[in-house]
């Protein structure tokens, strides 16, 4: 994958990519001879949301802040779970059936990699400065509501 922004830690890689995420070979990013489990998650654009049809999602990103938030999240996850981790998110247009986010984690045993991946996607949705503009089949567009980052 050709990432336009990337943050490499000791046990993780995170980054941003223009267009859909290509998931082929993602497991190789986290392979480790000491790890017997690899868990992967792909978030895929679906054709409906909140009762409306959807054709695509256009992702807006603040690259600097998003990469910082992804890096902090990866660091936390690698502290809480003994895993190797990769998280990639899209910027721009992603059509129905295409992946907008891919996450993979490896660990010695499955519980840690499964836990890390689940927590990764939960936290990404509420912490990383990324926004969705949903595009309908007739090109109607709407920004989706999300989680406020405001602390005061």
């Amino acid at each position: 994958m050709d990432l336009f922004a990337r943050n490499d830690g000791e046990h993780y890689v995170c980054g941003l990519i223009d267009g859909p995420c290509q998931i082929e070979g993602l497991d190789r990013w986290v392979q480790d001879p000491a790890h017997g489990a690899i868990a992967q998650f792909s978030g895929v654009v679906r054709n409906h949301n909140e009762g409306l049809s959807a054709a695509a999602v256009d992702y807006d990103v603040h690259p600097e802040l998003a990469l910082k938030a992804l890096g902090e999240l990866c660091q936390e996850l690698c502290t809480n779970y003994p895993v190797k981790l990769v998280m990639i998110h899209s910027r721009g247009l992603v059509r129905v059936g295409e992946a907008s986010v891919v996450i993979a984690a490896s660990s010695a045993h499955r519980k840690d990699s499964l836990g890390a991946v689940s927590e990764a996607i939960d936290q990404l949705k509420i912490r990383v400065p990324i926004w969705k503009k949903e595009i309908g089949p007739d090109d109607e567009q709407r920004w989706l509501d999300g989680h406020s980052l405001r602390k005061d």
Partner: protein
Amino acid sequence: MTSITVHCLGAFRALGDSLVVDVDDVSVASIRAAVSSSLVARGRADLNTVLTRSVFAEGDELLKDHATVSGSEVSLLPPVAGG
């Protein structure tokens, strides 16, 4: 008066990539108030509900309303919705 360029993201892209507001002081609270007035002036008072739940950032730092900005550019981040 100080001019602050506010970079628009997410739902605020409807206003363009950025807007410029003039403020008496460079506190985030003042910038927020100026943006709110600008939304009304532009006929987008509806975005004030989003603005209330939005946060400003300078560089890679999120700012609370009591903070002051050191430069002349900030980003306006509506509630996030990645994934």
